[in-house]
C-alpha cells in the first residue's frame, strides 16, 4: 500500500478506527451504487432533475423535507441505540469514550437541527399554503434555496461520520472545550459549518412563511379566522427570525476562533467563553419553542377534526401562542443557573420560565375541552395527538420543577434534565409531527397510511417512551450525570439504565413499524379520491389529494373559521368547486436548478473551511456568487399557466361545475 494512501485512509477515512466505520463505508457505498443503478436502469435521471431537484413547488419541497427528516430520524435513532447499548450495563466497553462522545454529539445535533427542523418545515410547506388558500409561498425560489441549504448542511454534517471525524464536544459545543487547544481536528468544524449552512436556510424559511401568512391569505380570511396551525407557524417564524441570527453569530465567531486565530471565546487575550454560552442559548431556548409551537398547531387541528367539534377557546389559543413566542426570549439563562450569574438574574429567569407554563397549561385545558361534548375518533393522527397530552403534562411539570433555580442546582446536567427534555422533544414535538404526518399524508400522496401497522408502531413507541425515559428522572436524582460514557457498578445505577435501554429498543422497533407501514401503504394503503380524507374542517381538504400544481384554480372566499366544515354543514360544498368562467391564466414560478447548484457551492465551501483547504472554500463561494449573479440577471422567473389547461385539469379531477 502506498504511503500516501495509508495516510489518507487513516486520516480522512479513519480506517484505523474499527469495524463500525468499515460497515458504514460499505453500506454507504452499496446504497449509493443502488440509487445510481436504479435511476439509470429506470431512466429516471431527467425526471429527478426536472421534477424534484429544480422544483420550486412548496408541496414537493415539503415532501423532500419529510424524506430527509425521516432519514435523519433513523440516523439519530441509531445513534441513540448505540448510546443506550453502551449504558445498558455498568463498566461496558462496547464503545470507547471517544466514540461515545462523538455519538452523543451527533445524536443531539441531528435530532434537533436535521430531524426536528426539516420535519417541521415539511409540515409548513405541505399545509400552510393550502390551509390559507394560497397558490404557493411568498418566495418559491427562496423556499427551494432554503431546502437545498438545509440538505447540503445536513449532508456535510453527516459526512463527518465517515470522512475526517465527527464532532465530539456535545451538541451545545461550549468553548473553551471546542477551541483548538482542547479539540483539534475537523470534527468540530463540521458541526460549525453544517449547522451554519442549514441555519441560513432556516432564517430564510422563517421570513418566507411569515410573509406568506401575513400577505397571501385568501380573501375573507382575517387573522382571527385563520386555522390554528397557521397561527402556530406564524408564531414559530417570528421566533426563528429573532433567534437564529444569534446562533449564526455564535457559530461564526467560534469558527473565526478555530480557523483564523481569533479570540472571541478563548480564555486568553480577553476572550470570554460565557459569551458563547449566552449566544447559544439566546437561540437555543427559543429554538425549543420554534419546534414545539407548530406541534401545538397540529394538535389543535387534529383534535378538533377527530373530536368533530370546534376548537375550544380559539382566542385563548391564539393569545397563548403569541405569549409563548414573546416569553421565549426571556428564559435563556435558565440553562445556566449554575454558572454564577447571581441571585437577581436567577430569580428573574426562574420566574419567567415558570410563566411559560401558564399559557401552555391553558392550551392543554382547551384541547381537553375541545373533546368534551365531542365525538372522539381514534384514528392514527388523533392517537399521536392524544398521546402527547399526558407526556406533555408530565414533561411540563418537570419543566416547572427545573425552573426553580435552587432545584436546578441538583438537576442541572443530570439525567433528570435528560429525561425532561426528551419527554418534551419527543412527547410534545415528535408526537405532534407524527400526528401531522399521518394527518396530511393523504393530502401529500393521495393515500392513507395503514391503520393496523400504524397502531402497532404507536403502542411500541409509546410504551418504549415511558419505559425509556421515566427511569432517567430517578437516575438523575441518584446523581448520574449526562454524557458519561460508562459508570461504575457500585453506584446502583445499573437496573434503571438497563430498563431505559429496553425502552429505547422498543422505540426503535416502533420506528421500524412506521417504515414498514409506509412501504406497505404505498402499495395497499386506502386511496383518497375525495380530497377530504378525514372529513376535515379547513381549506386544504376542499381540494383534491394530491393538490394540483396551482393548488386552487379559483382562490376561495372565506366566511368562517372552519370554512370548509361550515360549508359542508350547510350543504354548500359545491361553492368551492370550479366554475369555468372564474378561471384565468395563472402566473407560476419557473423551476430552477440554481438553488440546488448554490447548495452544492455551499457544500464545497463548507468542506473547504472544515479541512482548511482555502482554495476549495474560495471555489465553493465563487460558485455561490455565480448563482446569485445569474439569478439577478434572469428576467424570466415566471411562466403563464393557461386557463384552458387549468380547466382541463379541473375537469379531470371532477371539480368543474
Amino acid at each position, binding site marked *: 500500500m502506498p504511503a500516501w494512501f495509508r495516510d489518507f485512509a487513516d486520516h480522512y477515512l479513519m480506517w484505523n478506527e474499527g469495524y463500525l466505520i468499515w460497515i458504514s463505508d460499505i453500506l454507504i457505498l452499496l446504497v449509493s451504487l443502488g440509487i445510481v443503478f436504479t435511476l439509470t436502469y429506470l431512466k429516471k435521471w431527467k425526471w429527478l432533475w426536472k421534477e424534484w431537484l429544480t422544483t420550486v413547488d412548496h408541496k414537493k419541497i415539503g415532501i423532500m423535507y419529510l424524506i430527509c427528516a425521516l432519514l435523519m430520524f433513523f440516523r439519530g435513532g441509531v445513534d441513540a441505540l448505540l448510546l443506550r447499548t453502551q449504558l445498558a450495563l455498568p463498566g461496558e466497553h462496547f464503545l470507547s*469514550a471517544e466514540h461515545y*462522545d462523538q455519538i452523543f454529539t451527533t445524536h443531539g445535533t441531528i435530532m434537533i437541527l436535521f430531524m426536528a427542523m426539516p420535519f417541521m418545515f415539511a409540515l409548513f410547506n405541505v399545509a400552510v399554503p393550502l390551509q390559507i388558500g394560497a397558490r404557493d409561498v411568498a418566495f418559491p425560489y427562496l423556499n427551494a434555496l432554503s431546502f437545498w441549504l438545509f440538505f447540503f448542511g445536513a449532508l456535510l454534517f453527516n459526512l463527518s461520520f465517515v470522512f475526517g471525524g465527527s464532532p465530539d*464536544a456535545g451538541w451545545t459545543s*461550549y468553548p*473553551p*472545550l471546542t477551541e483548538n487547544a482542547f*479539540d483539534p481536528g475537523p470534527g468540530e468544524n463540521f458541526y460549525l459549518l453544517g449547522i451554519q449552512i442549514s441555519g441560513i436556510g432556516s432564517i430564510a424559511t422563517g421570513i418566507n412563511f411569515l410573509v406568506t401568512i401575513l400577505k397571501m391569505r385568501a380573501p375573507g380570511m382575517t387573522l382571527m379566522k385563520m386555522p390554528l396551525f397557521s397561527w402556530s407557524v406564524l408564531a414559530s417564524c417570528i421566533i426563528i427570525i429573532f433567534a437564529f441570527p444569534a446562533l449564526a453569530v455564535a457559530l461564526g465567531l467560534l469558527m473565526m476562533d478555530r480557523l483564523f486565530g481569533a479570540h472571541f471565546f478563548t*480564555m*486568553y487575550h*480577553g*476572550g470570554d*467563553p460565557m459569551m458563547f454560552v449566552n449566544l447559544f442559548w439566546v437561540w437555543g431556548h427559543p429554538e425549543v419553542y420554534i419546534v414545539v409551537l407548530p406541534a401545538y398547531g397540529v394538535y389543535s387541528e387534529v383534535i378538533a377534526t377527530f373530536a*368533530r*367539534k*370546534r376548537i*375550544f377557546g380559539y382566542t*385563548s389559543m391564539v393569545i397563548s401562542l403569541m405569549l409563548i413566542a414573546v416569553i421565549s426570549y426571556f428564559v435563556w439563562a435558565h440553562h445556566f443557573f*449554575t*454558572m*454564577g450569574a447571581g441571585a437577581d438574574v436567577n430569580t428573574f429567569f*426562574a*420566574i419567567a420560565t*415558570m*410563566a411559560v*407554563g*401558564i399559557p401552555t*397549561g*391553558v392550551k392543554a*385545558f382547551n384541547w*381537553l375541552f375541545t*373533546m*368534551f361534548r365531542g*365525538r*372522539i*375518533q381514534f384514528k392514527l393522527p388523533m392517537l399521536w395527538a*392524544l398521546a402527547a*397530552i*399526558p407526556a406533555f*403534562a*408530565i414533561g411540563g*411539570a418537570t419543566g416547572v*420543577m427545573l425552573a*426553580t*433555580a*435552587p*432545584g436546578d*442546582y*441538583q438537576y442541572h*446536567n*443530570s439525567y433528570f434534565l435528560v429525561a425532561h427534555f426528551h419527554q418534551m422533544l419527543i412527547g410534545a414535538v415528535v408526537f405532534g409531527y407524527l400526528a401531522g404526518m399521518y394527518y396530511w399524508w393523504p393530502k401529500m400522496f393521495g393515500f392513507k397510511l395503514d391503520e393496523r401497522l400504524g397502531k402497532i408502531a404507536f403502542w411500541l413507541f409509546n410504551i418504549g417512551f415511558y419505559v425509556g425515559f421515566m427511569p432517567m428522572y430517578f437516575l438523575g*436524582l*441518584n*446523581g448520574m*450525570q*449526562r*454524557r*458519561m*460514557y460508562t459508570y461504575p457498578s457500585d*453506584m*446502583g445505577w445499573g437496573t434503571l439504565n438497563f430498563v431505559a435501554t429496553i425502552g429505547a429498543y422498543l422505540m426503535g422497533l416502533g420506528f421500524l413499524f412506521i417504515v414498514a407501514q409506509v412501504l406497505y401503504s404505498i402499495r395497499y394503503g386506502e386511496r383518497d379520491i375525495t380530497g377530504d380524507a378525514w372529513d376535515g374542517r379547513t381549506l386544504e381538504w376542499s381540494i383534491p389529494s394530491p393538490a394540483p400544481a396551482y393548488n386552487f384554480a379559483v382562490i376561495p372566499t372565506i366566511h368562517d373559521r372552519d370554512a370548509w366544515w361550515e360549508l359542508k354543514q350547510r350543504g354548500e360544498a359545491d361553492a368551492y368547486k370550479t366554475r369555468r368562467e372564474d378561471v384565468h391564466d395563472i402566473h407560476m414560478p419557473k423551476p430552477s436548478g440554481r438553488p440546488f447548484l448554490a447548495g452544492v457551492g455551499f457544500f464545497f465551501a463548507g468542506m473547504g473551511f472544515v479541512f482548511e483547504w482555502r482554495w476549495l472554500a474560495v471555489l465553493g463561494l465563487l460558485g455561490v456568487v455565480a448563482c446569485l449573479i445569474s439569478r439577478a440577471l434572469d428576467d424570466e422567473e415566471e411562466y403563464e399557466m393557461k386557463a384552458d389547461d387549468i380547466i382541463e385539469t379541473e375537469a379531470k379531477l371532477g371539480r368543474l361545475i
Partner: protein
Amino acid sequence: MSHAALSSRILLTVQGGLSSVLKPAGPVAGQELKIIAGSLILTMIVVVPVIVLFGFILWRYRDKQDNPARYDPEWSESKVLEIAWWGIPIVIIGILGAYTAKVTYALTRPPVTDVKPMTIDVTSLDWKWLFEYPDQGVATVNELVIPVGVPVAFDLTADGPMNSFWIPSLGGQEYAMPGMVMRLWLEASRPGVYYGHAANFTGQQFAGMQFKVVATSRAAFSEWVRQLKQVDHPLTVTLYSQLRQPSEIGVQLYSSYPRDLFAEVVWREGGQYMVDSMPSLGSTHVSVSPVMVNAMNQ
C-alpha cells in the same frame, strides 16, 4: 505514613452508602429537596386533574353509535372555565416563584451562621479535581475531606474546559470556569462518604472524573490535617504543571502547596482580563509573580 494508610484511617470511622438528591446529608441539599418536593406538589395540582379529565373525556365522548353522552359540536366558548385555567396556574406560579426567590437568595449565604466557615479552593483539571485548603495549608487531588457541621465556601475555578462541581448528597452544583472564581456554599450535617463528580462534559476521560467526599468530625479532620502536614510531599509548581496535563490519576495528598497557586491559575487563565467584574480577585492578583506563571507555562 503512606497516603493510602492516611486515607483509610479516616474512612474507617465513617460509613458510605448510595448518594441521592433524595437523601440529603446537609442543610443545602435539605433546602433544595424541600423546593423539589414543593414544586412537585404544586405542579401536580394541574397535572393530576389534566390526566384524570383526559381519561374521563376519552371514555365518555368516544365515537360510538349508541353513546348517550351529549354531542355539542358548536360549543366552543366559556368565560368561566377559561378564567379558571388562566387564573389557577397564575396563582400557582406566583406561589412557586416567591418561594424560589426566597431560597435562591438564601443559598448565596452560608447555611449556618453560628459556626466559623472554612474555605476550600477547587480547581478542575483535565481530568482530576484539585482541592486546596488555604486555612490549613494542605491540598488533595480527587479526595475531599471536610469537617461535619462547618459551612464550607467552595471557591471554584478551572484550568481547562469549564466544568461543574457536584456533590448530590450535600447540595447542588456550581460551574468551575477558567479565569473566574465562583462560590458555592455546602455543609455536611452528618459524617459519611459521599459521591462527588464533574457534572459538565470536559472531554474524553470525563466519565472518570469523580471524587470521594469524606465528612468527618471536627476533631478527626484536625487530626487528618496534622498528620498530612507531617508527610513530606509538597505540591510544587513543577508538580502542578504535570497535574495540568490531560491524564487520569487517583487520589493524591499534599502536605503543602504554593499559597498563590489558586490566584495565579485564575489570573493566568483569563482572570487578568476580568478584574473589574470580579472584585474577589482584585486583592489577590497583586501577588502574582511572573516567575511562577512562566514555570507553569512550561
